[in-house]
């Protein structure tokens, strides 16, 4: 049973560019959440998708957007990249939307903005 997968593993972009990160949830999971983790900090919640809709959102600007497809996979898009967007982007899947529902994390995508 494949766990959560993310692509690409690493990505280098320049300021002002746009990026798309992809996530496939653990088999049977219908909820996908995205997190940003800066170096030395804990993951910060970006948003959560369920039934192809954004259900919850953290304190991130509209430059961060996402999508969930009918097969539950998801994309994270970031427009007008800033140097501060450099981070590890984590995708997590679960069977429910609540904090108490166990989150299964992928290995992450390391984004570097130059």
């Amino acid at each position, binding site marked *: 049973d494949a766990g*959560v997968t993310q692509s690409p593993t690493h990505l280098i972009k320049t300021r002002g560019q746009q990026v798309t990160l992809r996530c496939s949830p653990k088999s049977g999971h219908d909820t996908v*959440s995205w*997190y940003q983790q800066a170096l030395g*900090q*804990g*993951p*910060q*919640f970006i948003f*959560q998708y369920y039934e192809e809709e954004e*259900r*919850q959102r*953290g304190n991130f600007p509209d430059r961060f957007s996402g999508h969930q497809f009918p097969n539950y996979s998801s994309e994270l898009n970031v427009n007008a990249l800033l140097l501060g967007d450099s981070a*590890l982007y*984590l*995708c*997590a899947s679960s069977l429910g*939307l*609540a*904090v*108490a529902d*166990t*989150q*299964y*994390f*992928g*290995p*992450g995508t*390391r984004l570097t903005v130059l």
Partner: protein
Amino acid sequence: LAKTTQPISMDSYEGQEVNITCSHNNIATNDYITWYQQFPSQGPRFIIQGYKTKVTNEVASLFIPADRKSSTLSLPRVSLSDTAVYYCLVGGPNDYKLSFGAGTTVTVRA
């Protein structure tokens, strides 16, 4: 979400037991306590979850006193591979935004 407080770092040696205490004074009645482990450049991994008293699995034990205002994650006989950041999270069925603090960096030495 209940605010949590845990030590920034802890050092230990191989074979010892490591206990990490998390304070959550404003825990709500319906809240669960969940611990995640994260290795460098990897996503966090669920370790254990509990509501009250004691929970044990093949990896760790979680001790929760009757007032539930704190909890202790116990890692028995740690090895070098247990070096990681450990996060304590508290939330219930109506909390939807998982909030990670800085966590506790546990360093196990030979």
